[in-house]
């Protein structure tokens, strides 16, 4: 489709700002003024509306398609949370208001949302305190690891390593490294869990923490969790919980009860804030009592008189980790979601997401072997490696599924599973939908045998066929004004 720049006609206007109602003032000295052209598109509002409406129609989305993207918890995003987050009572609030003297009085509603959310997440996860500031899961990880570092520094611990299983999401080692730690990767045993012997072998006084996703990225719950915690705590190391998969455990198991010291939660997964094609998200971090002093400032506290305000007086705090109080608009959606579901609704979420995932795995594993054939939690990981014989890859199945009107599962993650296909149906999808999906996978696999090329030629029904990813990286055209040549 044409780029918005290619729809430009000199002189066209999409929006007119108000006329000035003040007397023309002293002009800005030329030295400081823009002299270069500003090649924004010149289009009408209609052009703009048509362009982005048509673009939107080129997307698969939860609103239009089944989207069982493993590890991403693509559940339904309730509409009422959207309209609430757009209500003027919140959207027009300036973030510096509560930093004025007595300013908290003008943002009591917003501060209470943050305060309640911290309390609710604390209860849901079994931690002692939360900060709502981190802006995504990985940001939560970084915050958590910084807290861990601050803890060890304060105690004079000399720590160097963070232990991470090889099944972990890429953000875990990346966050650990950015915070200044070296990472030790522990292989996965044939149960699909972290290899205990190797873990023991690596455990030492210099281990700052172990980062675990639980259930892990294979969708498996690690029943050794308490043993692992004991090992780590023995060396005064800390247990970090990557909350991306919390959707499996609501009311079933609380990280705080089984030895975890630091946790992040993805509100844009478990608590149904929409993903927006990649963001924004929210990755609040929870900690146990011993780590509370290190939480980032500001913190939201409530006076005896019931007034909420921001408190910055925490000398040991790691400080600011974001400009303000978190992605408030995202937090508000999760707030409304939790309030609507309530305790019982949250527990049902896990029960049904796990039931659906197991049904998927059970029906599919006769066609594509499960990476670790045992009952899973909220997602299952299959392997398409048997199809390599016909030179068919997981990606070919994925593209076939697109033509059948399904967004493909996550593929090639976790890295430890060959030709991995990671399927997370979520609690929101119906049995009929899953059956249709299963049927489509069956067809794909039989095509792999009978007519593999048919899979290689997928997708056919989309606006484009398979892109040349190599060319994109080689020629790197990421800016229209540096790649006009490549127009078509």
């Amino acid at each position: 489709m044409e780029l918005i720049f290619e729809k430009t006609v000199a002189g066209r206007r999409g929006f007119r700002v108000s006329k000035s109602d003040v007397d023309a003032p002293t002009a800005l000295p030329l030295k400081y003024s823009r002299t270069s052209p500003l090649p924004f598109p010149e289009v009408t509002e209609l052009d703009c509306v048509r362009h982005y409406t048509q673009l939107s129609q080129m997307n698969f989305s939860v609103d239009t398609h089944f989207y069982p993207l493993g590890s991403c918890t693509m559940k339904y995003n309730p509409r009422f949370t959207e309209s609430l987050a757009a209500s003027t009572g919140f959207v027009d609030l300036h973030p510096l208001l509560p930093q004025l003297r007595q300013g908290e009085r003008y943002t009591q509603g917003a501060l209470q949302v943050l305060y309640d959310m911290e309390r609710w997440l604390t209860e849901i996860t079994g931690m002692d305190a939360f900060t709502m500031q981190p802006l995504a899961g990985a940001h939560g990880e970084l915050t958590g690891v910084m807290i861990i570092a601050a803890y060890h520094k304060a105690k004079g611990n000399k720590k160097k390593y963070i232990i991470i299983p090889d099944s972990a999401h890429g953000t875990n080692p990346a966050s650990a490294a950015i915070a200044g730690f070296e990472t030790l990767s522990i292989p996965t045993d044939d149960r699909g869990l972290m290899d205990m012997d190797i873990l023991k072998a690596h455990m030492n006084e210099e281990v700052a923490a172990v980062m675990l996703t639980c259930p892990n990225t294979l969708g498996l719950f690690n029943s050794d969790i308490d043993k692992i915690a004991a090992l780590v705590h023995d060396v005064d190391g800390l247990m970090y919980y990557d909350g991306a998969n919390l959707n499996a455990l609501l009311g079933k198991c609380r990280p705080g009860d089984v030895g975890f010291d630091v946790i992040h939660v993805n509100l844009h997964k478990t608590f149904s804030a929409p993903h927006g094609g990649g963001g924004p998200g929210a990755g609040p971090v929870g900690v146990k009592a011993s780590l509370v002093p290190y939480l980032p400032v500001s913190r939201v506290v409530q006076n005896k008189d019931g007034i909420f305000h921001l408190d910055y007086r925490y000398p040991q705090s790691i400080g600011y980790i974001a400009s303000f109080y978190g992605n408030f608009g995202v937090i508000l959606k999760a707030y409304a979601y939790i309030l609507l579901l309530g305790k019982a609704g949250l527990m049902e979420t896990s029960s049904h997401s796990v039931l659906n995932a197991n049904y998927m795995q059970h029906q599919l594993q006769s066609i594509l072997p499960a990476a670790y054939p045992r009952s899973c939690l909220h997602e299952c990981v299959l392997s398409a490696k048997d199809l390599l014989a016909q030179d068919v890859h997981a990606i070919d199945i994925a593209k076939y599924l697109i033509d059948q009107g399904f967004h493909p599962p996550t593929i090639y993650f976790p890295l430890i599973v060959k030709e991995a296909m990671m399927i997370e149906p979520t609690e929101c999808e119906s049995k009929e939908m899953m059956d249709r999906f299963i049927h489509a996978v069956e067809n794909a696999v039989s095509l792999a045998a009978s007519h593999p090329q048919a899979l290689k030629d997928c997708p056919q029904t989309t606006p484009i066929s398979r892109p040349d990813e190599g060319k994109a990286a080689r020629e790197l055209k990421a800016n229209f004004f540096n790649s006009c040549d490549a127009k078509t």
Partner: protein
Amino acid sequence: MNPYIANTDADVQKMLEVLGMSCVDDLFLDIKKEHAPRSFDLPEGYSEYEVVSRINQLAGKNSSNLVLFIGGGYYDHYIPAAVSSLISRGEFLTAYTPYQPECSQGTLQALYEFQSLICALTDMEIANASLYDGGTALYEAMMMAIRITGRHRIIMDGGVSPIYRKIIRSYTNNLDIEFLETPVIHGQSCRPDIQKLLDEKTAAVILQNPNFFGAVDDFSDIVAMTHRHGALTISSVYPVSLGLLKTPGDMGVDIVTGEGQSLGLPLNFGGPYLGFMATRKKYARKMPGRIVGQTVDRQGRRCFVNTLQAREQHIRREKATSNICTNEALCAIQAAIFMSLLGPEGMKDLARLNFEKAEFTRQTLARIPGVEVKKSAPTFNEFTVRLDRDAHEVVEAMIQKGFVAGFPLGRYYPEMNDYMIMAVTEKRTRSEILQFAKHLEDVMQD
């Protein structure tokens, strides 16, 4: 009960039969009894209407009808209705990161347009598809400069937002990075101070334009200085101002970052916002964050994909250029729609209008006894005011009259208790400004 669950009791029975199980709990046997929650004390569920009423009550506890003369990097601009209406389309809202390009061209092309628009606005060669916010973007730029230069010393200009400085400090606490800061002054960056600190160990000089105190600058000379020492220049910018101000690209800046809130995003009590970053093409492979690139499909049709993923955590893991995964994609698309809708003339008019209203306000306030308007440097739509008393008190008094007069600098600079910064956007009408001045005059007389 959870209204978003599709399974009926009959569905559950059918599935359990298939699984050969008697109840759903059997699926959780890996969780030992002793690992069951010690407590799970949460609100009972409510109906949609009940939740809406409760949250509207909370909304009512915020004063959202105050007239804002407060900025500090976050501005009360008008958002055209078309922006909000397009960005709320479910196909944008409920898609994930575009891992499957064939069924995600909508998001991918929109992000490619965003990157191009940011390049056009800043006069840079390449931009990424967003970072969390203006503050973390500046931190990422610093880390990028360290990667590029292999040096570990950073010179932080006194004009950089104290909020950004605090963020950078916390992130680097554990790393061996040396910070040198130039004194905080209300005017333009002090060249000699920077000159003094610059040497062959310097990785980068971090600047901001307009700076936190509102001063507008041309960093061309600082850039030259910096390059002479093989260091990079990083500048944080206020995008709306670039409709009027000399661009960082024009000044030769190496890495540009900024807070994109002013590009069509509501203030939203602090987020979601939009961090952006642009640089020279030669540094692209050192840049953090997603980059959407152009390529062709099998029929040779132009299309778009996430590219240079080898920089990113899901491939590079601990060696990645950043740990970022989820970013602010939807906000970036929102900003792209905003910029496309305004076009070059709209963007310039908007910037000029902000400048003019601020100048008018400056001139109006200058006449008020007890109010001293700093004129040490040209400004855009925000400027520093010195009062003959504690600025906190004045701001507090003005809020009673329905105006947020500005942001008291004492909040971050204890020695500046009698200063505040004031922002004036295109939304402030002449009559609002004159009323404001009247009230301020009264307050200053008490």
